[in-house]
């Protein structure tokens, strides 16, 4: 197997670091993250979760808390963590199918959250 000195990898990592910092700085200059509502202000009636936790908020909106907040997330994490063993016992198709279902579910909930927050509220 052909190999190269790690110096070559370090050069590429340096370029990637610079690009990353440029993108981060550009975003930081262009878009100010919100700070929310002061706790001295009148109480807000509608608190929106950050987009990362949007799927969670949708689950909590439509399911009982113990299912939406405990059982479903635990099942998703268990499905992810157990993927290598699921494939061993049930085969690659089942493993791929379960992963695709779980990932699609999270993406679907995220899109649902974004549509509700962007269009309805």
């Amino acid at each position: 197997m052909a190999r190269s000195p790690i110096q070559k990898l370090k050069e590429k990592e340096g370029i990637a670091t610079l690009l990353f910092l440029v993108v981060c700085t550009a975003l930081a200059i262009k878009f100010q993250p919100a700070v929310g509502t002061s706790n001295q202000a009148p109480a807000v009636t509608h608190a929106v979760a950050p987009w990362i936790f949007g799927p969670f908020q949708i689950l909590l909106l439509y399911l009982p808390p113990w299912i939406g907040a405990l059982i479903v997330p635990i099942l998703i994490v268990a499905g992810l963590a157990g993927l290598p063993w699921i494939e061993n016992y049930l085969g690659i198709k089942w493993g791929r199918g379960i992963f695709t279902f779980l990932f699609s579910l999270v993406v679907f909930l995220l899109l649902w959250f974004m549509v509700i927050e962007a269009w309805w509220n």
Partner: protein
Amino acid sequence: MKEQEQEPEHYHKNFVNHIRPRYVPDEVLSVLYTFCLGGLSFLAFIVLGATGILLMFHYLPGDSSGFSSVITIASVIPYGGMIRNIHYWAAQIMVVTVNLHMLRVVWTHSYKSPRQLNWLVGVGLLIFVLVLDFTGYLLIGSQESGAAATVALHIVELIPSMGMGLGKIGLGNPSSLSGSTLVVYVWHCVGLPMIALILQLYHFWRIRQDGGVRPL
């Protein structure tokens, strides 16, 4: 210049040499090999650590002090707003790169034997990233963070017999108007990043131990 020479046996027993060997396979020099998503996630982690330390100089956790210190950082402290913004955006990018990294790993079947343990570590790191993001959100100390802290506390308390204790250990006593507490602050700035850093170093060490990365 291509090098074919082998390092001595004892060379790889050193942790740093193991993670950063003198020579690497030519393939890993290509960006398209893995899209550098794991490396970018670690880079985001480093940026978050550096900007986080700078923010710690002026941030005061607490019911009323949390939010006002964020406002002070964002609008009064020189370059404070910029540092906070970079901290925020690095966190958003990290969530995206970590998820894409997971997709790449699944796409290339890189979770299969002998890499199951490293897959578990990766899933653990994904959860840590989400919890770090959540605790960071609570530290803003806004009304929205108070609502999030209250919801999180109620969720944790659903766990039979130990929910109340876990809630106190993880979140302290947040009010419904501010999620900023000393407990959340210590978890966000010390506890969680330290564990995540150790897990990441182990993650990198295992990648080489398990035979390197698998390409697309």
